[in-house]
């Protein structure tokens, strides 16, 4: 329509808009250029180092059944440090860092005043939500990988490394054990997606990022407390933290994929529900910050 002023002006550099991967790349750049992000990753990397050093320095090897799972295997095979550290981090440390990143997604931008500028560009509200969720997911992956990789490095430095005996009794090579470690990291990443979606939703409710972060972290603790109460057994399969520690199935031969599938389904459900809530809230919200 030639009388359309937008067409008439002919200022558009291209007829069709780009898909917009640039915004996701920029989101990652902003996330990983923050000192806060690096501080959190460093803290996570320190956990396996602490565990390995403590075990190395103690005179008696850890007894089976005491301390976190897999701890007794660390002295026999350094590759278990990463897995042990993940078990230690899952209840609090990982949800804490994920809560910070997910709670900051929208509220943080609103707090800085950058949200209004992104929306005026226009970044698109739905697109921004998707990019923010993808960014939080990328952080989940980075966080778990940090623990696993740092654990593998310090384990290899302080303890013997060799073929790994799995929970099923089978032995796998060093190469395959690294693959299994990455698989566990993937499992834990998926485990944290539900919490990320909850954080994203809470983040659309406020312009105070610290509030959204705290609320997200508190919810992760509440879910685990509820999960520990036998009286609420009917509720347990619905808690996003239900499968958090069930990655042992990935350390059997052959791999049992049931818990991975159940976990992925549950997390996808949480992502869908809280993603929809975030959408409902954010798309019509007045941006007054």
């Amino acid at each position, binding site marked *: 329509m030639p*009388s*359309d*002023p*937008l067409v008439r*002006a002919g*200022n*558009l*550099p*291209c007829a069709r*808009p*780009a*898909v*917009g991967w*640039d*915004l996701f*790349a*920029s989101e990652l*750049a*902003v996330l990983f*250029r*923050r*000192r806060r992000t690096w501080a959190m990753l460093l803290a996570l990397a320190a956990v396996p180092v602490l565990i390995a050093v403590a075990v190395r320095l103690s005179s008696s090897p850890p007894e089976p059944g005491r301390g976190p799972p897999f701890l007794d295997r660390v002295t026999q095979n350094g590759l278990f440090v990463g897995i042990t550290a993940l078990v230690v981090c899952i209840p609090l440390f990982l949800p804490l860092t994920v809560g910070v990143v997910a709670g900051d997604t929208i509220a943080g931008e609103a707090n*800085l*005043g*950058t*949200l*209004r*500028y*992104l*929306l*005026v*560009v*226009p*970044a*698109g509200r739905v697109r*921004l939500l998707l990019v923010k969720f993808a960014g939080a997911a990328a952080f989940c992956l980075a966080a778990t990988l940090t623990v696993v990789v740092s654990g593998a490095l310090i384990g290899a430095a302080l303890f013997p490394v060799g073929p790994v005996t799995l929970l099923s009794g089978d032995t796998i090579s060093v190469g395959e054990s690294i693959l299994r470690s990455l698989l566990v990291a993937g499992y834990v990443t998926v485990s944290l997606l539900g919490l990320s979606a909850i954080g994203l939703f809470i983040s659309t409710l406020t312009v105070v990022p610290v509030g959204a972060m705290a609320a997200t972290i508190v919810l992760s603790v509440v879910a685990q407390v509820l999960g520990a109460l036998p009286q609420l057994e009917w509720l347990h399969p619905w808690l996003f933290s239900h499968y958090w520690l069930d990655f042992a199935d990935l350390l059997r031969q052959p791999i049992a994929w049931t818990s991975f599938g159940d976990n992925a389904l549950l997390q996808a459900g949480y992502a869908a529900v809280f993603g929809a809530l975030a959408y409902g809230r954010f798309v*019509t919200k*007045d*941006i*007054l910050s």
Partner: protein
Amino acid sequence: MGDGRHPAAELAIETRGLTKRFGHQTAVNSIDLAVPRGSVFGFLGPNGSGKTTTIRVALGLAAATSGQVSVLGQEMPRRLKDVLPHVGALVEGPGFYPFLSGAANLHRLDSADRYAPSATRRARVREALDRVGLGHAAGKKVGAYSLGMKQRLGLANALLMPRELLVLDEPTNGLDPLGTREVRNLVRSLAAEGTTVFVSSHLLAEVEQMCTHVAVMSVGRLVAQGTLDDLRRAGEARVRVRTPDIAGALRVLAALGLVPEQTEPPGRAGDDDGVVSAPLAPGSTAPEAIVAALVAGDVRVRAFSVDRASLEDRFVALTGEGFDIAQ
């Protein structure tokens, strides 16, 4: 101005009965704004009179309670995705990531624009920074910027792409006099390129120096709108005669059909002069004829002037209060 004088496409921003309520508080009360394309449009009003809220609604950041808004001839917020790429905006102060450099901040916002080609991004960022005089501070973290520098960075962001409309909310906030002057020159040069510039301000002098059109807000209402000249003309002119012959002056002016009054008694300035003044309707008696009549009537004219009400008087009359008083 909603009288159909401007076809919709000739208006860069148009609102019809735009109302925005927050709870019981009415921030914007049924305003009909008409911003002609190609104008430099000053949006004046005291702090808290509803200017920023109007801008937020026009840019689709907030939803109107009732009424319609169209920007560049397109209905908002329905056509937001098509309209906003043509609009550069500075809304209620700058908002940036303090831990990123100025250039990195612009990269970030530009990469959110699906119409902005990434191939030219680096060059466009540099150009925009140079244009607002921030070229030397491009690599510095925004956290270390002064308020004035952040304000300039906000302007640079609005200039990343060629725009048809610039919406600048209080663009000179935090700038020193020199910076204010630079912004004025920038706005002028943008307007000369054909960009419509919509500037909100609570500073009259600023608007007077760079705008062709003005709208005045007061407590959520639009109390005046038109070209700057229209608004100036709307203020009445007065003749002032300084003379010791008060009675004579009153008589002569009344005989000319004016409605004179003594506005200053004799002797106040240490002599025997007093002041008589009268409103002068446009197109009535010429000032020189008044002087001739006064002299012919034996009135000793010691000073004579035709004073036009300043814009400032006009705005004080319109907004009711001192110009900077928040409502």
